[in-house]
């Protein structure tokens, strides 16, 4: 294991871990979103899907791995952030960053915290919430509250912003930069971020519009 | 003292081989007992430091800048010559040797030049092995181009940044040794004095430029690799920190200074735009391969260049030198430009420039081919002038660029002080009165990689060097003298800054000792320099202290040296009553305005011995004999 620990202790290695965990989480987002969108099929289908998932014996280990991935991604990213902060103890009076800096890259830490806060509330309300009347009911009753729905949408748009940088950035970190493919990867990253953000947001939006009840 | 150049006996082709055999060797186990001090980290210094450390010597290296990689070799653009004959176009060691001796207008030492040509190929091999990304052909072999007046393609290059890439190669070799601990690197240090003990160079005193402290280092030999003195003209293509300090201070300790009047004016520089200009920028000579130099035929023609039709243009280099055309050597091209401007046919807002036009080349080869070859140079020109050279002709004017003169050294690169060696541009060596394009990089690296590793060993193996600690009285005394000089500079509290004096001196030097010189002007100059020097020491404006980073103080110290050195340069120019290479005396020219040498009287290297500031220096002559190349007037027509 010594090579892994050495790998971790290097700046490049840490970035690989953050990127690797991040991309894996992107995969999870796709699964999660596909499940969520079943809500548009009505309570029967959605609740059945939720029950099937809950009754799967592998769901607990999968959740534990997922939680691990999240923690790993967050903790290492925070360590990276701390090191970065240390690397420039005295800042500029005037700093006019340019280049590939985007809203997404600039706000990575902020969006991360918003998503984290959301995640905690989300877990409390949905994963560990009262599922006795079916998950469909739980979702609709929560998101009927306009404050909750707006918070939900803001969090998802933050996630989208986070992904707009994170997705393509991971490829660069893995060394996958090529004049032929990188422009496509960047576009794909934006598309992915948009699909995830809009996809998740569509549910509270629809509920607020009263189309799902 | 008589000058012994220590040229080995035998046929010229065998001299270096025989000499390497005759030189004594230092036992490998003993090498680490020797401490070598190297001042300067340009091509010569970095390559010498790396090579000597590889051999096992203990090396200490000093440089002015924050990193050894910044030395001004980095700015060399065009290329490096080598007698590889890869293009199969008739090159050979002999031809490179011949071209260099002839290009130097028969004022170089034949044996040195032959050795340089012999070594040239190894430099390319070694640099390529270090990972220098030389330009390549599609098949993967090295590309060559013709350069600076050569009729064969023997110049290797890395875009327009050959100096940078070669220096970074040598720097990487140096840093490898730093990483191994065999070289200790001392950046931001200025050599204040040379320590000579019992007749041999045994150490240096440096000022730590950050703390201002004086530091003493003792060693068994000292290598000065500190570049040229072009900044005595204030405006030159040299970097701001290039100075004559180290060599001048060594000269004051007994090292003879040879041929200081051999200065090179480079024909293709961006013209001067205003009085605040701090430096001139060179446009690589390689541009003359594709660019055509011209001025309007009529001095009154004030049309913009693209409006001047072909028949109203005077492509004066092609007219005057039909066989070499735009590729005549630097001194010839510079003087021709001066002649055009003296006729009032100069162009641009100041009238102090000529056109270098690429429109024909762009028409012939296409803009992208030109961009590929010269892109970075065109961009640089665009940055400076705000004019796009792909659309309008460049404007160029000659500027001081390189100095062939320097500390006198023998065949072993040792100065007249035993144990003090001088490498690269800092010595007077191999270029005679004029250096050919792409030969400076060759000489710097030849000295460092392939000459000094042998000759230094030869010296150390036979020298009797008693232990000398850096706390010996010689060092303390030199430290005190250096500190006193600094205190003195700081205590003047006058009105004029060092830059004011430097500018003034530079203007005088350019006017009276620049592209064309005459006895009257030189005498006038010689009467003004001592006055200026005296005023400098009475009216210098300086602030701050000597115990901190004080860049104005550094500058003042260097200007003080120039005010002494300029006098020697002018004296040498006055004494050399002939025209040769970069030294053009108006009294000595052929009817069609070409340089006229006087081989009867001046076929020698003039080595000057210091006798005191303001005192007449003593002239020592090293006669130059030409056995392999026949003396002839250079003819590029």
């Amino acid at each position: 294991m010594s090579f892994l620990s050495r790998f971790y202790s290097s700046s490049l290695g840490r970035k690989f871990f953050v990127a690797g965990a991040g991309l894996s989480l992107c995969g999870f987002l796709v699964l999660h979103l596909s499940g969520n969108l079943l809500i548009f099929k009505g309570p029967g289908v959605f609740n059945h899907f939720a029950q099937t998932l809950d009754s799967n014996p592998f769901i607990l280990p999968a959740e534990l791995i997922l939680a691990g991935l999240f923690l790993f991604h967050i903790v290492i990213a925070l360590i990276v952030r701390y090191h970065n902060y240390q690397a420039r103890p005295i800042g500029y009076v005037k700093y006019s960053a340019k280049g590939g800096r985007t809203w997404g890259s600039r706000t990575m830490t902020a969006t991360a915290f918003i998503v984290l806060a959301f995640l905690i509330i989300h877990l409390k309300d949905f994963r560990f919430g009262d599922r006795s009347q079916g998950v469909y009911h739980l979702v609709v009753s929560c998101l009927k509250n306009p404050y909750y729905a707006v918070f939900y949408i803001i969090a998802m748009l933050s996630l989208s912003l986070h992904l707009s940088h994170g997705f393509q950035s991971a490829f660069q970190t893995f060394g996958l930069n090529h004049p032929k493919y990188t422009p496509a990867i960047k576009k794909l990253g934006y598309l992915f971020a948009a699909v995830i953000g809009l996809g998740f947001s569509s549910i509270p939006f629809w509920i607020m519009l009263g189309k799902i009840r | 003292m008589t000058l012994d150049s220590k040229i080995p006996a035998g046929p010229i082709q065998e001299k270096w081989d025989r000499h390497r055999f005759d030189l004594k060797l230092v036992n490998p186990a003993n090498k680490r007992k020797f401490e070598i001090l190297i001042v300067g980290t340009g091509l010569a210094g970095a390559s010498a430091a790396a090579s000597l450390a590889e051999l096992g010597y203990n090396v200490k290296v000093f440089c002015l800048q924050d990193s050894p990689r910044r030395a001004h070799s980095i700015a060399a653009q065009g290329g490096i010559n080598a007698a590889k004959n890869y293009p199969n176009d008739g090159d050979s060691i002999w031809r490179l040797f011949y071209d260099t001796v002839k290009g130097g207008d028969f004022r170089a030492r034949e044996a040195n030049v032959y050795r340089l040509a012999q070594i040239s190929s190894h430099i390319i091999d070694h640099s390529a092995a270090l990972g220098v990304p030389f330009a390549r052909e599609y098949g993967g072999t090295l590309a060559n181009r013709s350069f600076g007046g050569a009729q064969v393609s023997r110049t290797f290059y890395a875009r327009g940044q050959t100096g940078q890439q070669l220096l970074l190669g040598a720097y990487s070799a140096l840093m490898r040794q730093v990483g191994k601990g065999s070289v200790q690197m001392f950046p931001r240090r200025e050599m204040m004095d040379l320590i000579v003990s019992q007749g041999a160079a045994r150490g240096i005193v440096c000022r730590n430029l950050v703390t201002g402290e004086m530091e003493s280092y003792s060693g068994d030999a000292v290598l000065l690799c500190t570049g040229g003195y072009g900044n005595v003209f204030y405006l030159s293509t040299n970097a701001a920190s290039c100075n004559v300090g180290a060599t001048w201070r060594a000269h004051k300790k007994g090292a003879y200074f040879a041929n200081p009047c051999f200065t090179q004016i480079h024909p293709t520089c961006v013209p001067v735009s205003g009085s605040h200009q701090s430096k001139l920028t060179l446009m690589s000579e390689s541009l003359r391969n594709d660019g055509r130099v011209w001025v309007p035929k009529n001095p009154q023609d004030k049309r913009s260049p693209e409006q001047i039709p072909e028949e109203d243009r005077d492509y004066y280099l092609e007219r005057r030198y039909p066989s070499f055309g735009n590729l005549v050597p630097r001194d010839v091209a510079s003087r021709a430009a001066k002649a055009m401007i003296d006729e009032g046919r100069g162009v641009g807002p100041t009238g102090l420039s000529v056109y270098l036009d690429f429109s024909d080349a762009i028409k012939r080869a296409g803009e992208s081919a030109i961009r590929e070859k010269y892109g970075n140079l065109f961009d640089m020109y665009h940055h400076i002038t705000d004019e796009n050279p792909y659309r309008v002709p460049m404007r160029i004017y000659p500027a001081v660029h390189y100095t062939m003169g320097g500390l006198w050294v023998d065949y072993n690169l040792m100065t007249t002080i035993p144990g003090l060696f001088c490498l690269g541009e800092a010595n007077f060596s191999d270029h005679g009165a004029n250096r050919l394009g792409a030969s400076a990089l060759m000489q710097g690296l030849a000295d460092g990689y392939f000459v000094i590793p042998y000759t230094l060993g030869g010296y150390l193996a036979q020298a009797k060097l008693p232990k000398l600690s850096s706390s010996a009285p010689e060092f303390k005394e030199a430290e005190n003298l250096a500190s006193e000089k600094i205190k003195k500079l700081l205590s003047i509290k006058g009105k004029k800054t060092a830059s004011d004096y430097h500018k003034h001196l530079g203007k005088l030097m350019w006017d009276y000792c620049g592209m064309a010189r005459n006895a009257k002007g030189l005498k006038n100059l010689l009467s003004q320099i001592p006055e200026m020097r005296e005023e400098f020491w009475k009216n210098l404006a300086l602030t701050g202290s000597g115990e901190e980073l004080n860049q104005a103080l550094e500058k003042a110290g260097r200007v003080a040296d120039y005010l002494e050195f300029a006098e020697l340069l002018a004296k040498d120019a006055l004494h050399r009553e002939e025209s040769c290479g970069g030294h053009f005396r108006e009294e000595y020219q052929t009817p069609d305005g070409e340089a006229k040498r006087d081989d009867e009287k001046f076929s020698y290297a003039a080595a000057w011995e210091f006798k005191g500031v303001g005192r007449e220096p003593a002239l020592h002559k090293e006669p130059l004999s030409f056995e392999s190349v026949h003396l002839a007037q250079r003819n590029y027509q």
Partner: protein
Amino acid sequence: MKFFLEVWRQKNAQSQGGLVRYEVVGISPEMSILETLDVLNEQLLEKGEEPIAFDSDCREGICGMCSLVINGYPHGPEKASTSCELRMRHFQDGQTIIIEPFRAKAFPIVRDLVVDRSAFDRVVAAGGFVSVNTGNAPDANCILVPKDVADKAMDAAACIGCGACVAACPNAAAMLFVAAKISHLALMPQGAPERDARVINMRAQMDKEGFGHCANEYACEAACPKEIKVSNIAKLNREFLRAVVCSDK
């Protein structure tokens, strides 16, 4: 032209610094920002004040010595230019220009605008070379290097080691500098034998010097006066991954 310069003044590494406002007049558009500072320094000297310390040497954009952050941009707002190449015609008459030193923990301030960039030298000393002694080399044409490979290596090798990438990076990372050297030597066949050790050692030294992590924001590429591409950083990442995963180092 007339300008107001707000320049960072700091006596030495230990003391506190701050911006000081100066007015300079009589500046012509073709002067560089460094020549403008020269003019200001001459005025200060004549007034008996201490001139502003700043690094510069070749003044033609190749030595990498100059190191100013001008209005928040390392080497100023112009693309592909060093401070010494930045002409005053790019500013408006009467404009205020803020000049600060490069800021990074690994580049401690020496005085005013002068910083210590010896960290870069130590990174190179850790592996930025080919281990070949003088005299060892075979004929240069023994090792063929395809033209496009040599061109790519040259693109990376054009780095002047100024440190603008570090200054521009929001995290003061030195990735572009290190990547340029790794990429150059990894592309050249001459660099191949030490490929793995080089990337591992240079990376380790880079971290030791206290540079930050790369966040792929590419501010470095935009600031680089020699337009070194961030694809080199990807190459560095690849080389590192290869060395750690595939080699026995």
